[in-house]
């Protein structure tokens, strides 16, 4: 579904991605883990077109998106959330979710300007779809509140709803468990699995909370210093000496 091949990215002398390669299969939930500064978020920014890699290739469903712009990639069915919640503070929760449906409304500029009947119909359908998605995420009660009035954890859930409402083929989640309590992390893990089973969405999950990674992911890729150092099922990868050395630490198994 998503293929990253030999991708490198530098900011001046700083090499943040170094010949990194991995792939995300159709309907798979893949964890991307590693220490801070490993290049995980940079990888996500490269995949979504925010940064353009100096070398390498990214393919989405077989189509080269390496040089595509962020909105073009989103229109092709790849959506993401951010490490810090980026809800629009000037819109209500449901309007934030409706934004996920915006790229191609059935009416054009002139239709919007004169208020054609299509406008009302599309807006009502978009609101309905967004409410259903909020309901699915357990956030329908907050629909009319401004996005900025929610707690950090609630904003993360709304952000996931916004990314999901257009039924993307690929969803990238950047540390969605930040700000969630342990029981909410378990609920989130169930949701992530449900996203895969109910919508058939492939998911790339960046996460430090290993509880979530183990619960949701069938495969894990580990990055360190811009390179992919391990790729496999969670148990095998977390037992890899390089992963223990660079990320988990020797006390990881003693504690778990």
């Amino acid at each position: 579904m998503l293929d990253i091949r030999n991708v490198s990215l530098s900011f001046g002398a700083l090499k943040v991605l170094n010949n990194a390669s991995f792939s995300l299969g159709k309907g798979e939930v893949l964890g991307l883990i590693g220490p801070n500064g490993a290049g995980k978020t940079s990888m996500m920014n490269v995949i979504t077109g925010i940064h353009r890699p100096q070398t390498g290739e990214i393919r989405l469903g077989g189509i080269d998106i390496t040089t595509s712009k962020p909105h073009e990639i989103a229109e092709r069915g790849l959506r993401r959330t951010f490490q810090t919640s980026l809800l629009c503070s000037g819109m209500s929760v449901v309007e934030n979710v409706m934004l996920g449906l915006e790229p191609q409304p059935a009416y054009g500029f002139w239709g919007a300007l004169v208020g054609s009947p299509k406008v009302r119909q599309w807006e009502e359908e978009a609101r309905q779809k967004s409410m259903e998605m909020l309901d699915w995420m357990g956030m329908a009660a907050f629909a009319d509140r401004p996005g900025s009035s929610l707690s950090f954890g609630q904003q993360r859930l709304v952000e996931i709803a916004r990314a999901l409402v257009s039924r993307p083929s690929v969803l990238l989640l950047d540390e969605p468990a930040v700000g969630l309590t342990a029981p909410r992390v378990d609920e989130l893990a169930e949701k992530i699995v449900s996203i895969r089973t109910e919508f058939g969405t492939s998911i790339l999950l960046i996460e430090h909370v290993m509880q979530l990674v183990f619960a949701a992911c069938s495969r894990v890729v580990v990055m360190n210093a811009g390179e992919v150092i391990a790729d496999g099922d969670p148990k095998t990868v977390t037992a890899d000496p390089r992963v223990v050395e660079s990320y988990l630490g020797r006390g990881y198994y003693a504690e778990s």
Partner: protein
Amino acid sequence: MAVPVQSIRSAWRSGSWVYPVAIAVVVALIGMTLNPYLLFLLTRVVIFSMLVAGLNVLMGYSGLLSFAHAALFGIGAYVTGLMQVHLGVPYPVALLTATVGVTGAGTLLVLPALRLSGIHLAIATLAVAQAVHWVLINWSAVTFGAGGFRAPSIAIFGLNATQSIFLTSLVLTTIGYLMVRQLVRTSFGRKFVAIRDNSVAAAANGVNVTATKTIAFALSAGCAGLAGGLYSALLGFVAPESFNLEQMILMKVMAVVGGLGTMLGSMIGPALVIFLQEQLRDSQGWLEIIFGAVLIGFVLFLPKGIAPLIYRVLAGKRTETVETGPRTGQKVGLSAPTDRAVEN
């Protein structure tokens, strides 16, 4: 009493066109009873409402800071007036040409600048404004230079010139206001707010940021062009000094005083600023100081402008509700930071 108030609130929230049109009819009736001087002032308010509504889409909804609008306003006035003077074109044709021309020219002029944002965009548009002002002064063969030129007045239905341009301005401004208000309640409005609040998140959700900025700028340029064309007929005399940087600042003050990101503020701002200007005209020497003090007072004590206060009254509770959002009759929240819905 409770029923009418509730229905007014409900109609206002749902975006009904009835109330703006009713207000326009009342303004028209009042205007036709005023003496020429007061009617001139009222017409200025109406014309600037059109301009500020467009500026609000750009500044309030989309968060784009532009200093080019006095220049675009000026191009609209010059094109309308000069087409009549040089080519003998009828006023409606000249006005339509100016509106379409300024929309296109304004968009082309700032297209390179649309890759910018914040203060950099402001500086780029300031450069455009200064260049236009230079052309208006120095291209004397066409523009009549710094001295300006006399623009033809208009007459409709046997009314005098001021009454004619007043009614024309009121009708066009009402239509323009309803169209712009309708637009910001659709997905376009959400895109404007999204690029203002966070352009990275907007793009990640499929919003074409450059295209959205272009639409916002084209729309506001069109409003400025139309307002300029109306203004030339109102003044009867077009000169570069009517469209300089001082006028640009005045336009921004109108938008801020009325309430950034609120369509209602687009009407209130011009009315208040023009009223203050006229009230302080007798206080020569103190005019700028008093005007400045009033503005500082607004910034300090009412930074969100007047419109949010009115929304509170219309909402009937301690919330800063909004007028934007799709017309589904449901509670909505799309707005600028100045009047976002706040749960209390």
